[in-house]
């Protein structure tokens, strides 16, 4: 009886310590994986912060288009977007301009300096903290059609792109440059630091489809020569290097075999 009480006490205290220290991160729901809350100026303007869903956008566009050609930063709130930027057709306003279309559907307009009660419904499409059941349903409709994955938002985006289920737009008239095709670097292997863990196969080919060069070099990866940038899994889980995208938008790093994939 005494031993049972002691075990119970240890478990209770242990759970309390873990809860108090906040070591257990809450896993986002599949439809919320990759959501970013942008709150620079919205609240000053009496609006809710913007909740940006990556899945809505990445099913149509490459990361590069938004993070290079349109100029969005790689971390929440770093871009300092104002409503006036959008109404001048920069940032969100590049596509959300009331006339652009995607898959023959008109994209709703972004910010306006003044709006009617009716138009306010458009504002809360982005400035919303409450869950939108219609959006959630749209996510599950998309997920059903896509190759599945256990982690993240349950979609294997890489496979969807490879198999042609996603046809990504990488340039926009009037925004993107006309670029010649790129000579892609070969895949290479990185040695795993833990015994028994397969080596990592890094594919430039797979990454450049979505990102081009500038998203990663030199802001995320400074070293050019293989092995020049030293990092550990702790750095990655801390949101640096691969962790800038993986865990946040791209598949989570807990999905070990996606990177540690070299046959043993």
């Amino acid at each position, binding site marked *: 009886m005494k031993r049972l009480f002691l075990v119970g006490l240890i478990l209770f205290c242990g759970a309390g310590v873990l809860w108090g220290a906040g070591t257990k991160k809450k896993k986002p729901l599949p439809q919320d994986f990759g959501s970013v809350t942008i709150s620079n100026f919205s609240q000053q303007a009496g609006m809710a912060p913007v909740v940006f869903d990556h899945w809505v956008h990445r099913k149509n566009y490459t990361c590069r288009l938004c993070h*290079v050609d*349109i*100029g969005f930063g790689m971390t929440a709130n770093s871009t300092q977007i104002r409503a006036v*930027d959008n109404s001048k057709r920069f940032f969100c306003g590049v596509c959300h301009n009331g006339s652009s279309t995607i898959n023959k559907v008109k994209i709703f307009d972004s910010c306006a300096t003044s709006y009617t009660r009716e138009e306010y419904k458009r504002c809360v499409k982005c400035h919303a903290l409450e869950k939108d059941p219609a959006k959630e349903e749209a996510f599950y409709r998309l997920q059903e059609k896509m190759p599945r994955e256990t982690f993240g938002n349950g979609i294997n985006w890489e496979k969807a792109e490879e198999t042609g289920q996603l046809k990504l737009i990488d340039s926009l008239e009037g925004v993107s*440059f006309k670029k010649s095709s790129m000579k892609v670097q070969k895949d290479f292997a990185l040695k795993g630091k833990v015994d028994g863990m397969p080596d990592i196969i890094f594919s430039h080919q797979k990454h450049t489809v979505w990102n081009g060069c*500038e998203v990663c*070099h030199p802001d995320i990866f*400074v070293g*050019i020569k293989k092995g020049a940038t030293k990092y550990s899994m702790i750095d990655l889980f801390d949101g640096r290097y691969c962790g800038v995208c993986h865990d946040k938008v791209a598949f989570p790093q807990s999905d070990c075999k996606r990177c540690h994939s070299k046959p043993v």
Partner: protein
Amino acid sequence: MSFVTMKGVIAAALLALALAQPVRAEEAWQATFDDTCARSNQAMAMSVQELRDLLDRCDALRKVIETQEESVRKVYLKRLSLCRNLYAYMLEYKQNNQAK
């Protein structure tokens, strides 16, 4: 055509020219920007001199963009820094290789 009408036409033409010039100037820096940063795909294959020239162009463009209105400045300074950093990164790599 009377002298007064003629003067009016000349004044209108001069005004139109004056208004068109800033637009042309804006187009000029944007064309330079496009031409400079559109080459990032080829950065790996460029010579040290080509990369140095592109960096000089980026620095000159930065000065022009800094004089633009806030939204333009925000977007284009970010875009410029991405391509400038890539060129600088490649230049460093090539110079290190030459030194070896």
